[in-house]
């Protein structure tokens, strides 16, 4: 039986209760909306990209602890990365929460995001963890359609 503390780590609860970059970004030049119709989670992600580098990121919305913390920590991890680095990180994060990372994978490049490893034990919660990331990905691609996780 998976341990609940593996899922609800202190750092996740902290980002849920006090989400970082939890605001619209007036100077954003990329933006997209995400929606999980299954649980009603909604997120809007704002990104400011200059010369191919993410300068700033923010989000607003409502969601569970996993989706809110994921959005909060994502915005922190994006700043200063090139778009290519962001896409690579997204792939890595996605593999982490879906349990597709090889057992000997080095989690160092995920940094703090490694706390989401517990999500892989809860398949129905993967969408909560990945909603903000899919939305951010759509923002970078300039997609105008709301990202739905269904």
């Amino acid at each position, binding site marked *: 039986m998976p341990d609940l503390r593996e*899922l609800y780590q202190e750092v996740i609860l902290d980002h849920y209760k006090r989400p970082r970059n939890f605001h619209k970004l007036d100077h954003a030049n990329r933006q997209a909306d995400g929606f999980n119709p299954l649980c009603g989670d909604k997120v809007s992600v704002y990104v400011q990209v200059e010369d191919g580098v993410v300068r700033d990121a923010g989000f607003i919305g409502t969601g*569970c602890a996993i989706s809110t913390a994921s959005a909060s920590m994502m915005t922190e991890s994006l700043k200063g990365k090139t778009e290519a680095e962001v896409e690579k990180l997204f792939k890595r994060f996605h593999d982490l929460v879906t349990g597709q990372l090889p057992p000997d994978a080095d989690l160092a490049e995920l940094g703090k995001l490694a706390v989401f490893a517990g999500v892989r034990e809860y398949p129905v919660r993967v969408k909560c963890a990945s909603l903000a990331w899919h939305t951010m990905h759509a923002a970078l691609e300039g997609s105008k359609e709301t990202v739905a996780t269904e």
Partner: protein
Amino acid sequence: MKSISEVLAPGIREKTPSFDVQRIRRDFPILGQSVHGKPLVYLDNAATTQKPQTVIDALIGFYTTDCSNIHRGVHLLSERATKAYEDTRIKVKRFINAPSEREVIFVRGTTEAINLVAQSYGRTHVAAGDEVLISAMEHHSNIVPWQMLCEEKNARLRIVPMNDRGEFLMEEYEKLLGPRTRIVAVTQVSNALGTVNPVHQIVKLAHEHGVPVLIDGAQAIQHMRIDVQELGCDFYVFSGHKMYGPTGIGVLYGKERLLEAMPPYQGGGDMITSVTFEKTIFTKLPHKFEAGTPNIAAGIGLGAAVDYLEAAGFENIVAHEHDVLAYGTEVLSSLAGVTIIGTAKEKTSVLSFVVNGIHPHDVGTILDQEGIAIRTGHHCAQPVMDFFKIPATARASLGMYNTREEIDALAAGIRKVTEVFN
């Protein structure tokens, strides 16, 4: 709002002698299992109920000994299958006290029944500028089919509001009933809130205006005795799987006079008298609305579910479920940070709640780890969530086999949720 002691009639707190919930539980094999190492506490009955062994046996029995198509074979197996399937129609007719089995139409479930009425009755009776009246607490399945109809016909969908306890506002309903109202479609019990609506009064007022009424009985049929003649409603719809029967079978009851005048919903086999390439003569009720091979096994299983409910007895079911609901309301209200959503005076079997600062989805995950199955989300009633300005709720919903001990387990689970978050 009445206090719990006022709600509970004297004596109800004592176990009803003829209703032994432990004996009932033994009839449901699924309830004996463990989930994540804890005994299963199944509190998601408004989504679907579990099935007693007799229903499971009926399904296995059909496929083991009687499997064949109905209404056409001259061979013995087909004769047995047809009889078993049609016996269910007679059982359902008695169960809801319909005047005739011609008025009992088998469909896939409540959703299909509502779509049938909207498409068949609705498209022939609703025109541009007309109005369809529903309530603010409908399930999406009693919103979307009418919305589609109104869009097609350029008609208007009007909504009877509710108050902040989740109660139907009768005065507003009276005001909305007008010369352009063509049909009223209202749920008897709200799936998201548990409110029991005053359907007698709703039907009476509509009939004073000459307007027919469809009652969505999906959340009522398993909790109280339904008598469609006494209700006087024109259509009554429900699903088998929420009344301890199989999925894939449901019932549309309609008054014969209305059904006779309605065009078929779908065309195909089993609903015709004769077919040529020039013209098809449709068959009589109820088969006119039953195109194609139905879910025969589920239909037979539904008959076993009706038998089970009749044997358990609604007097017992109502008293027992009322006791567990009242106990659950008392226990959940006493938990710090828990707010019950839906506090109507007349309620049945649903405890929708939110935990302060904790999203329902997280509540659901943690309770699941304790072996407790509840529903979290908008319960296919997004307008209800919007009304209460919440994205979602956690919902514990009761069946006849739930106990006070399971409410205690739920309360302990919710305490665990708040521990994890604090």
